């Protein structure tokens, strides 16, 4: 089902709980009662069309509203998503992982933590690059500032696949090779979180590739035209 601004936000979230994460990254909080999407967006100062484009994409893979998205709203949404990973999710996953591997051979535990740290470092690097280079570029574009020709959004190297494959490797080494240390429940809980983190990161990368990038490319094109005219 395609959601419109008249749908109640509470109903939408109950249908697709993964939208909880989307909502909070637009700076919305729970406790909005029976309000519809439009009212909640207005209250929080969120661009309603962008919000709808994202929730319709995440819930149904619908990209038909990609043209409606505001690139500034999108980059602020993506920045908040990055903050969620770097400041909340990864540190939390790490401490849970440390607990779950404790009691096994010290070196084995250390190797797993090392692996997680190198994964985290790789993802952080990618996200920080977007925060420091890609989003400022896009925000300049949105202000109509002509940008130098050395950077184009397509040239920004996508490392999304690499992020995916490392998480896959982490899961697989834990599942296949980590010896029993009497902490099955703790380890299962961490694995569940890793699986859901994986799904969320995938969805995040898809939003960047299929909603954000096309919108930025469109903007680049139109700026180039005005410049030539």
């Amino acid at each position: 089902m395609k959601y419109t601004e008249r749908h109640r936000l509470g109903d939408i979230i109950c249908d697709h709980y993964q939208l909880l994460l989307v909502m909070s990254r637009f700076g919305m909080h729970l406790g909005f009662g029976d309000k519809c999407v439009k009212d909640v967006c207005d209250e929080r100062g969120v661009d309603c069309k962008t919000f709808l484009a994202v929730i319709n994409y995440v819930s149904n893979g619908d990209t038909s509203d990609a043209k409606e998205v505001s690139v500034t709203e999108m980059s602020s949404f993506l920045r908040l998503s990055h903050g969620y990973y770097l400041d909340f999710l990864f540190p939390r996953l790490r401490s849970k992982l440390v607990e779950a591997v404790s009691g096994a051979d010290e070196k084995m535990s250390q190797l797993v933590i090392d692996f997680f740290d190198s994964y985290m470092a790789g993802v952080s690097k990618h996200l920080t690059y977007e925060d420091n280079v890609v989003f400022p570029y896009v925000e300049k574009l949105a202000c109509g500032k002509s940008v130098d020709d050395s950077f184009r959004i397509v040239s920004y190297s996508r490392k999304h696949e690499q992020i995916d494959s490392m998480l896959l490797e982490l899961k697989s080494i834990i599942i296949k090779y980590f010896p029993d240390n009497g902490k099955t429940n703790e380890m299962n809980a961490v694995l569940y979180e890793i699986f859901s983190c994986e799904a969320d990161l995938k969805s995040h990368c898809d939003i960047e590739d299929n909603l954000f990038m096309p919108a930025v490319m469109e903007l680049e094109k139109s700026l180039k035209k005005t410049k030539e005219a």
Partner: protein
Amino acid sequence: MKHKRETFKVAVAETSLILRSGVVSAIRRAADCEVLFLEISTPQEFDSKISAYAPDIVIVNPLFNGRFVVSEIRDNKSLGLSDTKFIALLSTLPTPSLTDGFDEVINLYDSSDQIHAVLDRAMGYDEPDISSEEEQLSKREKEIICEVVKGYTNKEIADHLNLSVFTVLTHRRNIARKLQIHSSTALAIYAIANKLVSISDVK
């Protein structure tokens, strides 16, 4: 690999009662699913009963009815045996002219295991899944893993094992592909878990 079916219908066409019964009993013993049999002792019986029975497999002496020509039987649409598998029952070494057109051959002196393998192929099962077999590490690859997790460089590994650096790199690529492991930390965990190295060896 196809999913195993519950039952198979096999027709055994052989004039000798003793051979026929022997085949039925040997196949019962070798098959790991239920097999239904139709025993056929004369060419007339073959013609009258075979299409109604619609067997999955026909086991037949190539000299049944003088000469049993598989291609003619298959092409005869009224018999409806175009998808049936034909297994030649031989008491001699197979000669190409005799077994022409047959899918498989069973020899009177085959062991139960050999018969089992023939039946599996005829029933459309592949050999036991060998793709996982192919992904097994070679002895050399295991040696390389040990060296890697001990912290040696590619150059050092090449020297220790009398290989070129290029070969070491090729091995490492193959290891990464087979294990789906690309980092040396993960490789160390793999090596410890599989007892290729002892924990104290890991750098």
